[in-house]
């Protein structure tokens, strides 16, 4: 607590001051009746830049983009009722990907709660299953405890979203404040037990065919460097989940890239042969493991995770270590014998040579892989890449040379179409020096298309690469492969003119279809500062391969 001259302030002023003290400098939201006192207080803040989203979900994903790019909790705001319900998808998305988010919602005045008042909804009840924790604030004084606590909870341990629902009369309530609380920050995590680290080290040293399996927790804990050092010292072939891409450069000699449903054959086949799986900050998601009984069937398992409830949840670990993964890896390193593991390396190299990721058309910018590589060739590792959800997301995950943690922002767990563009805006607001590229599809972009005007208004350096196959590509692909080619509700009959749509929203656009030299046009578009939509048609029949059929074991891949 810091003591100052007592001030009489409203709950709204207290909330804004606490956000300022928390270091919040940019937040996204939409005002409405029940949050107007906070917006009035926000209008007086010289420190906080409010970004006006055009749909609360867009605001939520902008905050997610900020949080994912920086690792720091970010803030979104919405009014009561529909404002709050519109925010829910972005909050649920943050929960599944462990993103620190603080959502502040207005609520009807306390005397009206439970009366079906105008724009009243049970935001507290609705948000219980999709938040790490939530609060319904019952007095202005309580804000002094709750807001720092919300930030502490969002950032501590396994990060996640926290919702603070503030009734309008609490926002207007006057209280005297004579002491300000310290900003909430992440609690320290006790180090893992040394004997578990010693057992894990012994298992790694004794293993013949070990594989290191990195998840999003490696990125969240800043453990990428420690993970790469461990892999190099112990010669561990390394696989990454969708969430971990970039934790080890995907073109590192030890990298096998992404595992699972759309991983390369060599990756899933190496996992099938491994005798030790070292899972670090990963949660054995079904898209990564395929049929669990068939996942790494010969392997013993070391599982390190900051969330004890992840240990033994899907697969029983031989050694389960609860703790911060960076601390655990740093403790492991001195106990690991440097080894070349020549036989296993040779076997993995053979698999890589025989069954690599095949990227047909990679040299042709009018194909999915070719377009993605052409974009990558125009950029360096400082660029940030976001995606929406669908075929384009998987192609980028397979083909983009991600080399930096927090370079890659994608909706992994919830798989939310509409994530990409607002998340890119948020990432660009948080790190304006970077070029932020959002790969999207013609299905996904329409789910938050309204944020194009926000991109124009904020003049963010966001390049939207729209891969247009006139369909819901992954649905089309699954209907083709698994539903007897009965294509239903996945081909768009009407197609917007995306160039005119973008221009109508104030975002310049380029259509690579009409360019005689698409590579040159792409290079110009990517190097011009400010928002830009880059449209490229791709063939509807293109598939993401290989593919593990839903419910099958990972070694039962189709194609590729």
């Amino acid at each position, binding site marked *: 607590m810091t003591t100052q001259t007592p001030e009489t302030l409203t709950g709204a002023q207290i909330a804004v001051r606490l956000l300022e003290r928390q270091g919040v400098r940019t937040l996204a939201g939409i005002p409405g009746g029940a949050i107007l006192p906070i917006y009035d207080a926000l209008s007086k803040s010289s420190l906080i830049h409010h970004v006006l989203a055009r749909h609360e979900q867009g605001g939520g994903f902008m905050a997610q983009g900020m949080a994912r790019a920086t690792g720091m909790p970010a803030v979104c705001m919405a009014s009561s009722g529909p404002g709050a319900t519109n925010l829910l998808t972005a909050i649920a998305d943050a929960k599944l990907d462990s993103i620190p988010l603080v959502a502040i919602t207005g609520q009807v005045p306390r005397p009206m709660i439970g009366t079906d008042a105008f724009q009243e909804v049970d935001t507290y009840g609705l948000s219980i299953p999709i938040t*790490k924790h939530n609060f319904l604030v019952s007095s202005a004084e309580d804000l002094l405890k709750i807001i720092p606590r919300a930030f502490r*909870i969002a950032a501590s341990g396994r990060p996640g979203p926290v919702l603070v629902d503030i009734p309008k009369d609490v926002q207007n309530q006057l209280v005297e404040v004579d002491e300000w609380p310290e900003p909430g920050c992440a609690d320290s995590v006790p180090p893992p037990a040394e004997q578990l680290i010693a057992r894990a080290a012994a298992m790694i040293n004794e293993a013949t065919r070990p594989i290191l399996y990195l998840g999003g927790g490696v990125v969240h804990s800043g453990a990428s460097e420690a993970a790469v050092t461990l892999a190099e010292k112990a010669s561990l072939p390394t696989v990454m989940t969708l969430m971990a891409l970039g934790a080890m450069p995907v073109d590192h000699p030890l990298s096998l890239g992404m595992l699972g449903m759309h991983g390369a054959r060599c990756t899933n086949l190496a996992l099938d042969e491994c005798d030790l799986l070292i899972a670090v900050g990963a949660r054995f998601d079904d898209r990564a493991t395929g049929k669990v009984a068939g996942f790494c069937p010969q392997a013993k398992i070391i599982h390190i995770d900051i969330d004890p409830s992840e240990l*033994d949840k899907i697969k029983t670990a031989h050694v389960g270590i609860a703790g911060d993964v960076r601390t655990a890896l740093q403790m492991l390193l001195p106990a690991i014998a440097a080894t070349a593991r020549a036989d296993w390396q040779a076997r993995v190299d053979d698999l890589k040579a025989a069954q690599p990721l095949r990227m047909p058309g990679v040299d042709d910018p009018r194909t999915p892989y070719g377009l993605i590589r052409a974009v990558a060739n125009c950029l360096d590792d400082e660029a940030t890449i976001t995606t929406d959800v669908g075929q384009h997301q998987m192609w980028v995950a397979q083909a983009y040379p991600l080399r930096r943690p927090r370079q890659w922002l994608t909706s992994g767990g919830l798989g939310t179409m509409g994530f990409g563009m607002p998340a890119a805006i948020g990432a660009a607001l948080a790190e304006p020096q970077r070029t932020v590229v959002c790969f999207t599809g013609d299905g996904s972009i329409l789910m938050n298309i309204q944020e194009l005007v926000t991109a124009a208004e904020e003049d963010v350096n966001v390049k939207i690469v729209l891969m247009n196959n006139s369909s819901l590509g992954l649905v089309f692909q699954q209907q083709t492969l698994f539903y007897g080619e009965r294509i239903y509700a996945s081909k768009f009959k009407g197609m917007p003119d995306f160039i005119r749509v973008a221009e109508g929203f104030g975002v310049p656009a380029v259509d690579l279809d009409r360019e005689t030299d698409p590579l040159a046009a792409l290079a110009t578009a990517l190097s011009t500062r400010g928002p830009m939509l880059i449209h490229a048609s791709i063939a509807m029949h293109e598939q993401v391969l290989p593919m593990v059929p839903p419910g099958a074991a990972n070694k039962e891949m189709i194609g590729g």
Partner: protein
Amino acid sequence: MNSLTQTENQALTRRVLELDVNNHAGVMSHVVGLFSRRAYNVEGILVMPVGSGETSRIWLLVNEDERLDQMVKQIEKLEDVLAVRRHGAAHEVFVRLEEFFL
């Protein structure tokens, strides 16, 4: 309600969970929500404030199931849960309540 017959239900092994929690309006929702969203039936619930009323104690009667360990870990993660203790079915708290259900 679950779909087991009373006989089947009685054949299942019961467990009693004892939770110390902060006492405010949303805590019960947080706790029982963990069960309901996994379609895990709670057979009995008893809650009373403790001491000055800052905290409460929740007693849950549940069927033993392979998910119970995961349930306990999830309960322990809740911000408002201060402690979780596990007891066998013989614990007398629900046994002594039974007379109110005769």
